[in-house]
């Protein structure tokens, strides 16, 4: 019923490891709270609200001002805690002993739909006063949630999947339906919650929403034992995965992140609406090089993603294409239960019909993906190795007789990615992590040799196990040469294998190169720093690829 209840839910979810128990706790929460607060809880827990009302820095400054804490002290605390909202919550403890009446029964709805939005209408001074007032009137147990909502850092170990499962249990309806209802824009309201828990499944209401996406698994060796003829082969594009939906004449574009992105790609929406049939397509959106018929780099696509209502110039400069690789629904008929090979036949049939029969030409914005036909597995491997030439990431291998189910179900779709490029580099700087990694040195910078000097070439923070992180953290503390704020320069001694996806010339970096998605793939304790790679090796790698 209240923020208090939600704070308790948060605490419970945060300290339960078992999925079944989490589902049980969620189910009970939904049972015992108002629909409107339930819908807000879902909104928060699924991370659909990442709106930041004020920044973590602002929050820290404000606390420093009100309670006369030196900024450096708050910053030091932050290094231990790793989350601004939590630092302030901990510091606020026993601080707000005012005699003000406590807002102990404020509902989530009131807080989120009135109190917090009202803050943005105040000027800075009023806003600060109001936040101070809220700190003093909200019970202490609710400070963490409040601060997290303010700073838009609401992340708990709860996935959409978990919410889906608990709602599904609550009303005894299959997960697919719930997952379908949860897709896309979930606006907290009594209606949206009641719709979610409605026991009658209404196709009309579900009209604009995408199907749950089917996801590919990383390839496993056992697949090579199967006949190559059991599979369909496609290039793995590095674009935005999307469902393109046209129902009752309306087109909607949904990303896998469940965002409706019609506004970013109006030219696609417009042209697809010329098609006579209704449909749901699964595919990839790319910025396309029409001359060479290959995709442009993902960085060009990034220029389009966050831009709403792009003008003509932008549309011409970064021309997009939707490459369809599956047909899930045609003229109101859900065909996900039909085998892939038959869906493919339908996809080809309809696509060519659309290309010919649609009044306006759609070939400059829509096509279906080409298939590859390797004779045997070694040839498939050769295709995979060549995938960089056409700017793809490898192959997607799909079982021909599979139906389109949801989630990352094993054995239906496989991704077979090009091996990453690798260099052995020397660890030279470390920086403290945040969140779960607070208090540990977890952000690392690596260098390559140039003559007798080590030049920084990449930063990475993923790839080590928790045990390795702790071990390295210990080593870092003992082998620091200098501290600059949160950064330590280190004795060059440790060598790591760094893998990355792309390497290109960059004038912005001292090393002259930039790599994409660098990550640590091995701690090369067997190597001395003289065994690490040089910048020259990096340049050669670049030549080999282009």
């Amino acid at each position, binding site marked *: 019923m209240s923020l208090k209840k939600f704070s308790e839910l948060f605490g419970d979810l945060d300290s339960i490891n078992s999925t079944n128990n989490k589902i049980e706790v969620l189910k009970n929460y939904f049972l015992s709270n108002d629909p409107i607060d339930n819908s807000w809880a879902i909104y928060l827990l699924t991370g659909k609200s990442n709106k930041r009302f004020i920044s973590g820095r602002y929050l820290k400054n404000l606390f420093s001002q009100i309670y006369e804490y030196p900024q450096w002290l708050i910053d030091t605390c932050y290094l231990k805690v790793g*989350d601004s909202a939590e*630092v302030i919550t901990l510091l606020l403890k026993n601080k707000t002993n005012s005699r003000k009446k406590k807002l102990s029964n404020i509902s989530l709805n009131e807080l989120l739909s009135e109190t917090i939005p009202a803050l943005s209408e105040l000027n800075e001074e009023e806003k600060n006063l109001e936040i101070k007032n809220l700190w003093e009137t909200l019970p202490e147990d609710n400070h963490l949630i409040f601060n997290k909502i303010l700073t838009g850092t609401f992340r708990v170990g709860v996935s959409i999947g978990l919410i889906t499962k608990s709602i599904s249990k609550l009303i005894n309806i299959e997960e697919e339906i719930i997952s379908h209802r949860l897709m896309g824009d979930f606006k907290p309201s009594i209606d949206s919650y009641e719709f979610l828990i409605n026991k009658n499944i209404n196709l009309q209401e579900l009209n604009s929403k995408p199907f749950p996406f089917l996801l590919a698994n990383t390839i496993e060796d056992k697949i090579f034992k199967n006949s190559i003829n059991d599979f369909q082969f496609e290039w793995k594009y590095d674009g935005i995965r999307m469902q393109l939906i046209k129902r009752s004449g309306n087109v909607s574009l949904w990303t896998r992140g469940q965002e409706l992105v019609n506004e970013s790609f109006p030219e696609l929406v417009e042209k697809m609406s010329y098609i006579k049939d209704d449909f749901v397509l699964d595919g990839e959106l790319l910025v396309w090089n029409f001359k060479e018929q290959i995709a442009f780099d993902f960085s060009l696509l990034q220029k389009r993603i966050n831009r709403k209502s792009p003008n003509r110039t932008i549309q011409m400069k970064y021309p997009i294409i939707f490459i369809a690789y599956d047909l899930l629904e045609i003229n109101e008929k859900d065909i996900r239960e039909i085998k892939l090979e038959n869906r493919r036949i339908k996809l080809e049939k309809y696509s060519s019909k659309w290309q010919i029969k649609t009044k306006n030409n759609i070939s400059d914005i829509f096509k279906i993906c080409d298939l590859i036909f390797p004779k045997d597995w070694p040839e498939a491997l050769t295709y995979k190795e060549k995938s960089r030439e056409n700017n793809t990431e490898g192959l997607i291998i799909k079982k021909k007789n599979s139906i389109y189910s949801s989630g990352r179900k094993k054995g239906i779709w496989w991704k077979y990615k090009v091996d990453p490029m690798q260099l052995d580099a020397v660890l030279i700087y470390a920086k403290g992590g945040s969140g779960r*990694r607070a*208090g540990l040195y977890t952000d690392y910078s690596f260098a390559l040799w140039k003559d007798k000097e080590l030049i920084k070439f990449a930063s990475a923070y993923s790839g080590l196990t928790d045990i390795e992180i702790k071990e390295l953290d210990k080593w870092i503390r003992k082998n620091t040469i200098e501290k600059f704020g949160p950064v330590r320069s280190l004795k060059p001694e440790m060598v790591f294998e760094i893998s990355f996806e792309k390497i290109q010339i960059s004038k912005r970096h001292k090393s002259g190169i930039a790599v994409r998605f660098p990550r640590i793939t091995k701690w090369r304790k067997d190597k001395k720093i003289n065994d690490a790679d040089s910048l020259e090796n990096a340049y050669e790698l670049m030549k080999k690829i282009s």
Partner: protein
Amino acid sequence: MRTKQEYLIRYKDGSLYCKLADIWIDPSKPVKKALITHAHFDHFTFGCEEYISTKETAILLKERIGENIEIKTFEYGEEFKINGINISFHPSGHILGSSQIRFIFAEEKWLISGDFKLQKDQTCKQYEIVKTDYLISECTFGLPIFKWDESSKIANDISKWITNSPEKTSLLFCYSLGKAQRLLNEISQTNFKGNIYSHGSIHKMNNIYRDLGIDIKDTIKFESKKKIDELKGSLILLPPSLSKGSYLKNFKNIQTAFASGWMSIRALRKRSGYDKGFAISDHADWDGILEVVKKSEAKNVFFHHGDSEVLSKYLVEKESINILLFGK
């Protein structure tokens, strides 16, 4: 200003040492004469020729080192002289028998806080405010993010944690000397009325506490061969060293928790690998340390164990207290 060597007490080989009395405080290596603040393993070492402590600490030390050690005991507040220096023990509120140690020489007072807390704890004597000129204080939790809740609140949380999962066995990890007994004392005052088991190492300490007149709830000594069903809904206290490795494989259907001040930080809680963390500590929190510094009226303070730089800088800026840096 005197140089480091001229201070009555200073750091030598990583431990506190008073040259004039030729006596060490909580030394980490065997020495001739050692004053011991309390009986946690990181505060004493085997093989000293002579130990000096409170009566309770002496009993615990004998349990941990052996009956044959040479040990002299004094009551809280009782002064004794070594080489013309007046020395006395004062309650520090950390665990049973724990003490602060005061030195008086030539009208100059020195106070070594030992490990201490101000919070209520029915298993040991309450911290005593002792006035001093020089204060050597621990600051394990010397950041303002550390502020403890009442221990009765934590005990209620623990009680709820157990009773909310009646189908599970609840394993609570905690230090076997001090923390375990304090928790038992507090938990016995909550609504939790189920069985409590203690690991052998904790059970032993419980008995000593009871012998010394401390009110500790009777617990069942935990034998690892117990049938799983019998343990449903009950609480088992275990030392933290057993949380890693194969020990836990003997159990089925458990939930685990760790009772420690560090558990107040979410990142540490998550990283610790326990299902739940209860933030309860036998050390002073930020406000506790500041209160002791103020009430001791010390004009010179030296901090060790913890974020001493932060606390030092804060006190210099805010309270204009002189902070000594001995160097270790």
